[in-house]
């Protein structure tokens, strides 16, 4: 076992794949843009879903599967989703064994809460910082393998590009040390991308500043197919802010929080009014559109602004401390009001990309040897993700991709070390040349300002409500920004610790993916999950029960479409004003 | 367990046992002066006539003092105080513990050279008159006052710190109670010590 597997990304998916590989005795190079403990996974709040049925409500993996497919408006391929849901309880047990501090029932079992779009309480949680707790546990396991010498961590390194051999297979990575800006090449038999979502394309979102999607964009620009890019989740509740829209977990509603605005001088609980069967527990796309309607169309937002109340003042303060302290603290720190006493004011915000790199059921992209897992791939959420499913999807994908990459690399006839060194040198030289060109950019545009402009256009036109004329105008705008990109000035800041040049590089990736999102939305003339067009208000299964696949070309993305795997549940109309009917398990 | 762990723990312990105990005994003996000159001289001479005195002095006093002092200098050196930015009560005490350590060290050195070794290694001539003559010089009196307060403070706060370092007081409440306790020790020692000091004047 002389080969190397390289993992890019130290979030949940990446760390889980590292553990799976190291457990098999495989040596792994792990690259992460930030120390793994600071990955964006820490921001996940609400919890992780699994049908463990500890409340005796009669939950089952089939119900969880059906909720997920239904919540995703039938766009997800059903086979991998079903496999994931069935593995979910064992995933919870595994991370529990690793020491994740999940909340407990009085008897000492795992406590569960209910999140939107779910019929049952199936979200296991660690206060309101579940993602943080999960990543710490996986990080600790990886540290153990590091201690045993199986894993080498390269923290604060960024992926620049892939090394592809003559047959097009991925054979390694060109990476950069973010301190010295040194560029190096690392040969590998298989490369796993677990690099998270591209939320920074919107600038203001619930995402971390590192979520530029650059690694995925880079793979896309080197021939990897990007799927379902137009499906971007807008979370119903975040604190508005100029630098960031801070997420207020769905678990707030799950634990009894109510959403309202004043109407005719009286509180109006519009979600409970419009969706009596689910009330405040409707899925995110539904809640977000309702809030938009109330604020934008009906002009009933708090103080006339785009805000609604998210109210927990009626809940028991001790329960709040036990289950929601993490988020309540954030609100207190950044706003100054105590949510136990004053209703919070929140508004929807860009949150999660259901789309991502296209992968097969083995998590391999269309580039042989390049795998993807976590938010950077598209596989598990369809057109809308249910709260609590991202964490399970990230860990599950990591559990699948590790062994699959291991199998793949061991099945190779020629290991990366047997390949001519010139292949790697060439790839490295290419990036060094590109970097020199970046440093030579001395125009008048400021990359951060261009980014700001991109974000404003994307938020205004490619989020909750989408109109074709605005989408086309946005694509025009992105192309204009791509023109202006050429006249960026990076100043004369030296290489060491330089942050402008790497940012400028990422900006190009963001612009490229922004086109994939915008044009993907433009082409899809229907409404499905998070993608809503007033001109095409209904789901159109006949024409659009399809996976969008975007391929990079010099003239912008080229789109093609694949049928969706619906082998277990027949698509049916998705509605939340009445209880979801029970489907028969035929699989 | 590394040597550093052992020596560090021993440093904390040596400040209490035997040095703290010795300090209290010392103040108790000094207090004999409050009952008059004769009483004090009798007490001192009794003390000087116990068997194996040199052994007690060496093992219970001098070696622990030397160890506590020299290791302590090392501990003080390893610290970078930051009281100007972190003005918390405990940080103040931490800082004062180091300041008082230095004062106490200077004071004790001067005190021992001046009294115990005033006439060579085997000097046994400490009498009320001798001490009284010294303390009636205002400068010496003030220096003694400072030295006493520093050593009492150092001991009392060291006692609190010892209770934490040895894992005796763990909870916040226990540590707070211990802090009150160590303050009481400081007050009592100060009262007794100063009362004895003034008896020579």
């Amino acid at each position, binding site marked *: 076992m002389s080969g190397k597997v390289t993992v890019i990304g130290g979030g949940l998916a990446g760390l889980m794949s590292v553990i799976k590989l190291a457990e098999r005795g495989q040596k792994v190079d792990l690259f992460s843009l930030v120390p793994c403990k600071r990955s964006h996974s820490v921001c996940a709040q609400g919890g992780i879903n699994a049908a463990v049925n500890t409340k005796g409500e009669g939950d089952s993996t089939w119900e969880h599967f059906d909720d997920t497919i239904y919540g995703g408006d039938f766009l997800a391929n059903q086979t991998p989703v079903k496999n994931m849901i069935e593995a979910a309880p064992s995933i919870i047990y*595994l991370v529990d064994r690793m020491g994740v501090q999940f909340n407990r029932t009085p008897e*000492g079992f795992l406590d569960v809460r209910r999140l939107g779009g779910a019929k049952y309480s199936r979200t296991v949680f660690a206060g309101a910082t579940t993602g943080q*707790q999960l990543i710490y546990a996986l990080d*600790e396991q990886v*540290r153990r393998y590091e201690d045993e010498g199986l894993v080498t961590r390269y923290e604060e390194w960024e992926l620049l590009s892939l090394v592809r051999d003559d047959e097009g297979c991925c054979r390694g990575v060109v990476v950069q040390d973010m301190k010295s800006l040194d560029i190096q090449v690392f040969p590998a038999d298989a490369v796993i991308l677990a690099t998270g979502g591209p939320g920074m394309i919107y600038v203001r979102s619930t995402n971390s500043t590192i979520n530029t999607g650059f690694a995925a964009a880079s793979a896309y620009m080197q021939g990897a197919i990007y799927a379902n890019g137009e499906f971007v989740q807008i979370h119903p509740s975040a604190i508005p802010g100029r630098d960031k829209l801070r997420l207020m977990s769905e678990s707030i509603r799950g634990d009894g929080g109510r959403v309202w605005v004043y109407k005719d001088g009286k509180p109006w609980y519009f979600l409970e009014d419009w969706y009596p069967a689910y009330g405040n527990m409707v899925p995110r796309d539904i809640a977000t559109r309702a809030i938009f309607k109330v604020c934008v169309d009906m002009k009933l937002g708090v103080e006339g602004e785009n805000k609604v109340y998210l109210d927990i003042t009626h809940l028991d303060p001790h329960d709040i401390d036990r289950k929601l302290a993490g988020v309540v603290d954030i609100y207190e720190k950044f706003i100054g009001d105590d949510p136990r006493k004053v209703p919070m004011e929140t508004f929807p915000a860009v949150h999660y990309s259901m789309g991502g790199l296209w992968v097969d059921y083995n998590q391999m992209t269309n580039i042989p040897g390049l795998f993807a897992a976590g938010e950077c791939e598209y596989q598990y959420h369809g057109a809308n993700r249910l709260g609590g499913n991202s964490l399970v999807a990230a860990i599950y994908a990591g559990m699948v991709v590790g062994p699959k990459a291991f199998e793949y690399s061991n099945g190779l006839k020629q290991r990366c070390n047997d390949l001519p060194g010139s292949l790697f040198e060439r790839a490295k030289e290419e990036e060094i040349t590109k970097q020199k060109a970046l440093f030579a950019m001395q125009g008048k545009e400021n990359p951060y300002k261009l980014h700001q402009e991109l974000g404003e256009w994307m938020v205004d036109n490619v989020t909750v409500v989408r109109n074709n004329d605005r989408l086309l105008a946005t694509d025009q705008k992105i192309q204009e920004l791509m023109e202006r990109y050429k006249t960026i000035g990076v100043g004369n800041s030296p290489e060491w*610790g330089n942050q402008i040049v790497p940012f400028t590089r990422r900006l190009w990736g963001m612009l490229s993916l922004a086109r994939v999102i915008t044009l993907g939305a433009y082409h899809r003339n229907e409404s499905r999950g998070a993608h809503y067009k007033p001109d095409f208000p209904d789901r159109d299964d006949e024409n659009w029960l399809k996976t969008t696949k975007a391929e990079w070309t010099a003239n912008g993305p080229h789109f093609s479409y694949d049928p969706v795997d619906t082998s277990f549940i027949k698509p049916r109309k998705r509605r939340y004003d009445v209880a979801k009917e029970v489907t028969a398990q035929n699989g | 367990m590394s040597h550093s762990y052992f020596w560090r723990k021993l440093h904390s312990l040596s400040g209490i046992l035997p040095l703290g105990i010795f300090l209290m005994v010392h103040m108790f003996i000094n207090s004999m002066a409050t009952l008059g000159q004769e009483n004090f001289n009798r007490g001192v001479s009794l003390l000087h006539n116990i068997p194996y005195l040199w052994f007690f002095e060496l093992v219970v006093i001098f070696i622990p003092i030397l160890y506590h002092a020299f290791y302590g200098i090392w501990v003080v050196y390893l610290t970078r105080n930051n009281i100007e930015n*972190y003005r918390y009560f405990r940080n103040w005490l931490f800082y004062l513990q180091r300041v008082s350590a230095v004062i106490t060290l200077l004071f004790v050195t001067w005190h021992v050279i001046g009294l115990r070794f005033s006439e060579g290694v085997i000097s046994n001539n400490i009498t009320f008159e001798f001490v009284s003559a010294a303390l009636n010089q205002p400068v010496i009196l003030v220096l003694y006052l400072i030295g006493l307060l520093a050593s009492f403070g150092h001991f009392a706060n060291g006692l609190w710190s010892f209770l934490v*370092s040895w894992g005796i007081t763990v909870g916040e409440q226990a540590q707070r109670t211990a802090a009150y306790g160590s303050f009481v020790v400081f007050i009592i020692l100060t009262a007794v010590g100063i009362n004895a000091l003034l008896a020579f004047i």
Partner: protein
Amino acid sequence: MAKDIRLVIKRQANPKSADYVEEFVIPYFPKMNVVAALMEIQKNPLNAKGDVTTPVAWDCNCLEEVCGACTMVINGQARQACSALVDQLTQPIHLAPLTKFPVVRDLVVDRKVMFDNLRKVKAWIEVDGTHDMGPGPRVSPKVQEQAYRLSKCMTCGCCMEACPNVNPKSNFIGPAPIAQVDLMNSHPTGALQRERRLEALMTEGGIADCGNAQNCIKVCPKEVPLTRSIARLNRATTFHGIKSWFNK
């Protein structure tokens, strides 16, 4: 109402170069925090004199105080820049890199030592493998609540910065990894490796180097009960030391 804020930033081009101070004036907006102010410098890299300068380098990711990246010294105290609201700070606002870690550039420091320390004290639970072995041990809600407080540590470095015994002269590992030993040792499975972690804490630069200044608990943004953990482990290591000596 147009209002400006003034930033005085300690800068340094690289680990070897000398540091210097540069001032910036930035337009104010409500609920502004220090990260948002630094972002304005990126967009408009002019110093207070109006000269073009290199934008200030700093670390940040989550902007909601869970990742720990943006820790720096703000008006003399270590804290996260994202949750440092301008309205609550005295002006001019002084920004400086953490002093207990090597500076990379400007406000960016290298906190690798903190992760190395976690490795040193073996802060992980030894599971047999990732295959399905059913549920983990049952834990009472009370024990979980205590442990959860410890597991919120985001390795941000505030406690290291405020600790007078953590500095270039000493080897002290600082409060953060000690609390993680407490966390791991309080877990039913983690307790199986309890003694190994205690021994790690009893090595050079370990728990005995704590001088009880207790600044750590005051500055910890996540209110991790650090001093309690330290005292608990003082007790545990004392017993362990005595026991192993008598068992020699």
